[in-house]
């Protein structure tokens, strides 16, 4: 047998930008990540025509999973129309000939930075989150070798100590985004910098979530129907952002995650952070079910304690 028989013929063009070997490697790593929920799998992060830190990890996973029949939605901090989101969406459409959409219910692949859509994702949908810092222990353990050992032993005392310190110093937990969660009762995971509002959406979700950090070269997954619990003391319940009294000035929606727009007279206007959802309300497209109902109740009863 010769090497030439084992290798693929040279191609001057690859579907969806990445070469087949890279995509194959990534798929294997994703499968491993799905098998061990919350475990960070190292992978060979490739070059994509985008700087590290702009979503290269998410983009590589999207390019690996995309097919001509896919429908892709790209979110940047809730918005579909930011420069970053628009460029990534156009790039994927160009190299993979996939359909694009801004409707979360229609998309099969959703690449997102910092937000999960308000509408419930369903079985078969894949959410890809861009992650700047995959290691939840980074703040308490600077050595990644030592952090890997702590994960192996499930020795998470230091994470709890961090929360304890916040309670002592500020009388409440000040961790906003990247709130550490325990996945499948085993690994502590950083859910990427999504707000606390979005963290419960990962719990027993019907969709698959893949979190990928291109610069740090690691990915991890939350498979469908997996336990995801934010770290909380028994007597200090996990708190989501308070959105009481905030009304979207475009759509009139309430009890959804809002962006605050400061006005010149010192007051504030609020608008839906999830722009795709807002657009659906305005165009009177039939809406999917949302994670939080119109009274702000989460769809898993009892998951958020008062």
């Amino acid at each position: 047998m010769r090497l030439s028989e084992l290798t693929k013929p040279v191609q001057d063009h690859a579907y969806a930008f990445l070469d087949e070997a890279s995509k194959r490697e990534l798929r294997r790593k994703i499968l491993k990540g799905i098998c061990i929920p919350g475990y960070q799998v190292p992978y060979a992060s490739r070059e994509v025509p985008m700087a590290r830190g702009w979503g290269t990890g998410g983009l590589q996973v999207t390019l690996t999973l995309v097919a001509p029949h896919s429908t892709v939605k790209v979110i940047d901090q809730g918005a579909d129309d930011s420069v970053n989101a628009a460029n990534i969406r156009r790039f994927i459409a160009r190299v993979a000939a996939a359909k694009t959409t801004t409707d979360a219910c229609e998309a099969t692949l959703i690449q997102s930075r910092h937000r999960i859509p308000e509408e419930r994702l369903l079985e078969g949908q894949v959410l890809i989150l861009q992650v700047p810092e995959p290691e939840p222990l980074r703040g308490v353990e600077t050595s990644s070798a030592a952090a890997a050992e702590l994960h192996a032993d499930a020795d998470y005392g230091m994470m709890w100590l961090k929360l304890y310190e916040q309670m002592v110093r500020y009388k409440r937990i000040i961790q906003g985004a990247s709130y550490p969660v325990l996945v499948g009762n085993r690994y502590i995971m950083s859910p990427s910098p999504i707000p606390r509002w979005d963290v419960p959406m990962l719990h027993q979700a019907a969709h698959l979530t893949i979190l990928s950090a291109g610069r740090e070269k690691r990915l991890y997954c939350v498979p469908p129907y997996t336990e995801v619990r934010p770290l909380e003391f028994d007597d200090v319940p996990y708190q989501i952002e308070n959105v009481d009294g905030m009304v979207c000035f475009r759509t009139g929606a309430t009890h959804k995650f809002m962006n605050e727009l400061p006005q010149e007279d010192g007051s504030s206007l609020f608008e839906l952070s999830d722009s795709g959802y807002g657009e659906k309300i305005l165009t009177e497209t039939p809406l999917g079910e949302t994670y939080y109902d119109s009274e702000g109740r989460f769809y898993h009863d009892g998951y958020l304690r008062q």
Partner: protein
Amino acid sequence: MMATSVNDLILEPPRLVKHTPLLTVTNINKQYGQVIALEEVNVELYPREVLGVVGESGSGKSTLLRMLNLEENPDSGAYHLEIPSYQDQNLFELSRFERRQLRVKQIGIVYQNPHLGLRMRNSSSGNVAERLVVAGERNFSRLRAAAKRSLEVSEFPVTRMDDPPKNLSGGMQQRVQLAKAIALKPALLLLDEPTTGLDVSVQALVLDTLRRLQRDLGIAMLVVSHDLGVIRTLSDRVMVMRHGRVVEQGLTDQVLEDPQHPYTQQLVHAKL
């Protein structure tokens, strides 16, 4: 009535013979390259007893302590602790995970250098609470109350319980270490030169606390020190080490008043 003959007398065996030791270490050897750190060392520690280990620098005291704290394995030897679910188990054969479990619940340690035992930037109460968290406590107010109680017991000023150890004096840092060590009422407390580096008056206060704790909690302690004063104040029995061997052991008074081995004699008389 017939006088009972000597043979009929039922003599109570001495307490130390009757009780089973809490800690038994048999024949441990350790070599670092050509250097022999420990050679055929045997240790027995009984419940509620304080054993002092003295010796010069490099005599193997600290190596022995690291092994008792399961931080390191010897080349050969066995280590048993007489505590539920660990009887008849050579602790040197435990996996890293099991060791951690055992250490958290049953072994407390106070290092000479507080940097080894404490997180200097976290609060003092947090340092104590971490141990309870690792043992499974998830209630903030209970954690805080337990940390406070433990710090009080070690005579740490409660008003400063949220100061980070880096802002505390040496004596207070040792008290935080002590509070952390006894937070879960361990079966065994290891003290590695607990008062070295403290000035004499603070040293006396810390020794006082240790003495009282030992009386109140009845924890078995093993004190390593090169300071004979510390050993004399704290320990019931003493073990003298040199070049990795135990050269003499016995009751503290006996060994320090009437040393038999030439090295011990030298040590006892080498007071300034």
